[in-house]
């Protein structure tokens, strides 16, 4: 209901709801910073890699050379931290898929809503800004 209310009043999300930046632009610098993290997540499109990741997540992260912060974000499924550390949503979504999490779940995480609230916000016409 909270998500719905916000939409009705056309309010911008506030810092209290989410730690995420408004927008993540995957510029070239971001690509460089996120390279290992994104390569690791991208590798999960192969079943054999998913199995190896699930067997030992930390070791798999080390194989791809993730930074300690990136590795921690992956192990803790801190989706916002992954974005702040150079993640691209198209790559980190492969990890979410392995966890059987939807894009609506991630949307809720980024915006400080439950999955249901976020889904309802979309069904009500989406979130408006500006």
């Amino acid at each position, binding site marked *: 209901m909270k998500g719905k209310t916000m939409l009705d009043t056309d309010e911008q*999300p506030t810092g209290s*709801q*989410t730690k*995420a*930046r*408004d*927008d*993540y*632009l*995957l*510029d*070239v610098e*971001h*690509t460089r910073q996120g*390279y290992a993290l*994104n*390569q690791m*997540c*991208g590798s*999960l*499109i*192969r079943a054999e890699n*998913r199995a190896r990741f699930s067997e030992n997540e930390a070791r798999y992260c080390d194989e791809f050379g993730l930074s300690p912060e990136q590795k921690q974000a992956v192990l803790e499924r801190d989706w916002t931290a992954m*974005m702040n550390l150079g993640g*691209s*949503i*198209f*790559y980190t*979504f*492969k990890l979410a*898929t*392995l966890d059987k999490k939807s*894009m*609506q779940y*991630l*949307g809720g995480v*980024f*915006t400080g809503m439950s999955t249901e609230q*976020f889904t309802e*916000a*979309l*069904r009500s*016409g*989406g*979130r*408006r*800004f*500006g």
Partner: protein
Amino acid sequence: MANVIWGLATSHVPSIGAAMDNGKTEDPYWKPLFDGYAPARKWMAEHPPDVAVIVYNDHANAIGMDLVPTFAIGTADSYDVADEGWGRRQVPPVVGAPQLSEHLVRELVDSSFDIATANRLDVDHGLTVPLSVYCSEPGEAWPCTVVPVLVNVIQSPQPTAARCYEFGKAIGQAIRSFPQDSKVAVFGTGGMSHQLAGARAGLINEQFDRWFLKKIENDPEALAALTREDYVREAGTEGIEMIMWLVMRGAMSTNISRVHDAYHVPASNTAAALALFDDLGDRPETAT
């Protein structure tokens, strides 16, 4: 000579494909979207192309981060359907049109477009969902061959909207100079407004989308004049993929007519739309 017979702009959201693959098109969530498609599908079925030139982007499935091309053209005999991490879509493999691909590559490189050639390419939902929008029941094989045209919309700097429009014009010219008698449909895919990550996730901007849907027909220059910052601000970090519609529009002649369009919110986290244009370019009716 080859000829652009129609242009289709369509969203390429994975869940639109999944809804078709899993028989959910009559569910209340999906029915309005697919009802909106119906008139366009009927018209397209009556005007089948030999080849579809499909402008789309890969989503971390075939193009990694090692080498990110601004524009790429598939040149293969055939393209496997990508496994995006949740199993391959149960749709037929995509048969290429390598002679048209080669012709486009040569003409475009000679017209100062610095394209990459994709000699091997698994095609993801960005390409297969639009094919399903055109043809929902392909059976054993898609009804046309395909030239995949890839645009980088994920890594910034994306090509400018103006460059995409110019790219489309050059593609149209190259198609019309292809010596084989081929009927070509051009697909511009992606959009409309949406944003997947960040505090603005869930963004939809219906006002901008409807303005874009209107302008794409007869004032594409207004859309080509927008900066990438304009697209991100108005349409969201992923909504910028609407620049791919401009490639399709550029490939069509100036003499087009709108067959049908549809707009629906939401398809997953996205505003979904379809716009179909008949290309009247070189038919007798043009001499009015």
